[in-house]
């Protein structure tokens, strides 16, 4: 099959360390799950397959208020920080999540802080004497550090890594900021997990084969609705919606206003408003269990006041209806009817309010899942995920040590470019840069395949997506970087990014889904049986792509500068036109030649004829190409020495080749998990 055409490749090689040995070691049971919330945060563990549980601090408090105080000499976090808030509102930072990954121009909500933009980085001025400016990332890191210490006390040793949850709608900058906060806190961030996905994991919804779920998350200050689809073991966010200024605190405010009105206080003092709010909160919580509650509110002059659940419900109804409207919009965005859902999950303390549960049940036509504490459900899901990623075995989770079948991409001509080789140790990341085929190409279809065969059609197809918005550039000038990241739980994330514009698209798949050990064996043996014909087919496909590329380039050059007679004299033009026709004919003949035959020798012969046509076309158009290049050089490099020009050309040529180099394994820890 091989053409004996000996040439010295010239390169000298060194023996490399095995790629398999570069994987990170595992620390089963030492992963933690963190729910980094706007108003409060939690940490949970689920070591080595155990049921998840949230961890309390020394005082037995599970919830860490997301508040950091810079009022004193030492940074204080949580409840003690909250206690300093009234006295130093501008030096005690709460709800910092709203600032994460944001520039000063993005901050459109009200807050008591003095913001400073230093070098494009948003900072909060929390002290003048001495001057102290903190970034939202640093503030979040303080919260994460406190939770990490809590986990270390519980685990009796270091934490290996963490899964941190983020809202499903967080953009890249917000996610990166969260990741950075984790790193500053000394945590290896295994993965960021969408909050609704974490809630779904907590309920084990990923064990099903497939399904569609709604996650209704009503916290203290925010409301989020997400529609998720489980497909082949992976959750996809189909739609998100909500209101970043709607939550249980609004319920409290509505009830407090009602109490103040009942007390006949038209212009209450700040203290009276505060005690009304505190009383309202307590009333709201008690009314979740009781139909009516009697209280004394001496500061408001109210004695033995009866408040009924019906009153509360009437007060919050407009707010509750706003959440329902958002739910319906999200369903519509997802293109689903309520009846098509397979489950609804409640998240957030405010979903304890009976009226909310009732409305959710009516809207989605089914009782919601409620048996996990809605304040803890996200942390539970994160803890389960962290446990898996630490290398623990859990029921229903298949952990792999090595990649059972190579993972790659389909490139021009249906050829497979392997990115992660078979038998590489998991977890692993690899990336490779691809380029465009023609100037007309403004998108790139990323077809992810699995298997050992040389042609995409003989492999398992895992996913397909299109990266759009590639700038129009001459052939081979665009740069699309494709990253394959395979996590400990065999989740493959494929990200394609155009390096000039930064446009990005990603997909997540479970390559092992529905793949049995027998099938792996069969596919590997098949690839050995077909090795000869596969290489021939690959050679043919490559010959075809190469000839196509040269035809395109020559046509383009003739079209652009062919009218300039000094570059392309009539004789040369004739010869080139003839060679182009012959090349076209070779393409057509090749299709006919291989159409009815699959033998290796026919395929080889077809590849050889394409290669001959390409070499002929290249040879005949070479003088024209050289003159064209010379002209371009004269125009662009006037005033430069010959040495400079040669050096520049050599660099360019080398860079162009390097651009498409073999898949590089990513070893940098910082990159891992992106």
């Amino acid at each position, binding site marked *: 099959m*091989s053409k004996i055409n000996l040439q010295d490749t010239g*390169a000298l090689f060194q*023996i490399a360390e095995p790629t398999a040995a570069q994987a990170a070691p595992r620390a089963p049971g030492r992963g933690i799950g963190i729910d980094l919330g706007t108003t409060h945060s939690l940490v949970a563990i689920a070591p080595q397959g155990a049921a998840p549980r949230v961890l309390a601090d020394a005082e037995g408090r599970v919830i860490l208020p997301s508040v950091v105080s810079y009022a004193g000499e030492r940074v204080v976090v949580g409840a003690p920080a909250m206690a300093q808030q009234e006295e130093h509102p501008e030096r005690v930072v709460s709800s910092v999540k709203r600032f994460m990954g944001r520039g000063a121009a993005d901050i459109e909500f009200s807050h008591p802080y003095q913001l400073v933009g230093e070098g494009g980085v948003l900072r909060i001025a929390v002290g003048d004497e001495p001057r102290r400016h903190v970034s939202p990332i640093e503030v979040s890191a303080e919260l994460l550090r406190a939770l990490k210490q809590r986990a270390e006390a519980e685990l009796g040793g270091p934490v290996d890594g963490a899964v941190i949850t983020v809202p499903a709608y967080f953009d890249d900058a917000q996610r990166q900021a969260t990741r950075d906060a984790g790193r500053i806190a000394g945590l290896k961030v295994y993965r960021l997990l969408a909050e609704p996905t974490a809630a779904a994991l907590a309920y084990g919804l990923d064990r099903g084969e497939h399904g569609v779920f709604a996650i209704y998350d009503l916290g203290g200050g925010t409301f989020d609705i997400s529609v998720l689809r489980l497909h082949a073991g992976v959750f996809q966010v189909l739609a998100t919606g909500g209101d970043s200024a709607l939550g249980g605190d609004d319920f409290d405010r509505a009830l407090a206003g009602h109490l103040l009105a009942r007390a006949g206080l038209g212009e209450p003092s700040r203290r009276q408003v505060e005690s009304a709010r505190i009383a309202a909160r307590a009333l709201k919580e008690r009314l979740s269990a009781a139909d009516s509650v009697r209280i004394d509110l001496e500061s408001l002059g109210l004695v033995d006041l009866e408040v009924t659940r019906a009153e509360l419900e009437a007060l919050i109804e407009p707010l509750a209806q706003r959440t329902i409207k958002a739910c319906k919009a999200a369903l519509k965005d997802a293109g689903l009817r309520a009846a098509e859902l397979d489950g609804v999950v409640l998240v957030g303390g405010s979903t304890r309010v009976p009226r909310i549960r009732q409305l959710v049940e009516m809207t989605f036509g089914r009782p919601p899942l409620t048996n996990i504490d809605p304040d803890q459900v996200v942390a539970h899901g994160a803890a389960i995920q962290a446990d898996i990623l630490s290398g623990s075995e859990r029921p229903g989770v298949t952990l792999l040590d090595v990649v059972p079948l190579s993972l790659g991409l389909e490139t021009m001509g249906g050829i497979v470019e392997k990115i992660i*080789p078979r038998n590489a140790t998991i977890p692993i990341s690899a990336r490779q840069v691809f380029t465009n085929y023609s100037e007309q190409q403004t998108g790139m279809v990323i077809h992810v395949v699995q298997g050992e065969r*040389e042609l995409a059609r003989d492999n398992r197809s895992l996913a397909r997506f299109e990266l759009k918005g590639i700038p129009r550039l001459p052939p081979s000038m665009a740069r699309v970087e494709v990253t394959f990241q395979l996590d400990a739980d065999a989740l493959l994330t494929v990200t394609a990014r155009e390096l000039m514009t930064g446009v990005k698209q990603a997909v997540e798949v479970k390559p092992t889904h529905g793949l049995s050990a027998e099938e792996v064996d069969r596919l590997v043996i098949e690839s*050995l049986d077909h090795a000869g014909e596969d290489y021939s087919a690959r050679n043919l496909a490559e010959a075809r792509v190469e000839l196509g590329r040269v035809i395109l380039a020559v046509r383009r050059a003739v079209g652009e500068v062919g009218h300039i007679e000094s570059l392309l004299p009539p004789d040369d033009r004739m010869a080139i036109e003839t060679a182009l026709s012959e090349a076209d004919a070779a393409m057509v003949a090749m299709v006919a030649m291989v159409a009815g035959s699959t033998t290796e020798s026919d395929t080889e012969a077809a590849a050889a004829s394409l290669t001959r046509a390409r070499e002929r076309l290249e040879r005949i158009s070479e003088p024209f190409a050289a003159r064209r290049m010379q002209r371009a050089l004269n125009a662009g490099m006037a005033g430069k020495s010959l040495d400079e020009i040669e050096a520049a050309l050599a660099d360019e040529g080398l860079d162009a080749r390097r*651009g498409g*180099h073999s898949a590089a394994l990513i070893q940098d820890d910082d990159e891992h998990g992106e």
Partner: protein
Amino acid sequence: MHAHAMSSSTMSSSTKSSESSAAAASATAPSVAASLVVTSRAAKVMREQLARRGTPQAAIRLGIRGGGCTGYSYLFEFEDREPRASDHVLVKDGVRVVVDPKSMLLLKGTEVDFETGMRGHGFKFTNPNTQGSCGCGESITF
């Protein structure tokens, strides 16, 4: 497609390798002696590097993998695991070089030598199946 035919040029090398410790191994495992040649000089450097790495018993894996700007590139690395059943194993002066059967198709007749000179030093693969190379020399065309 497994290469069993011995060409005269590789014959001498395989004989040499049997003189050392290779007799048993080449009798049991599918032998690549027929189609891959490792020079004594190359084997000596491999042995030294294995010893320096602290794994004198490990093998060297040579293979071809898809990738690189013009298609394929060489894989050349230490192999700590035992060869797989389908691997071809060549033993030269006590050093095991393993090649998977698919790569063997494209390595048939390749000589692995060690070179020192103007360009620095390193292993050199002379592969009769190659057609050309890219500028960096790491990718090969068949």
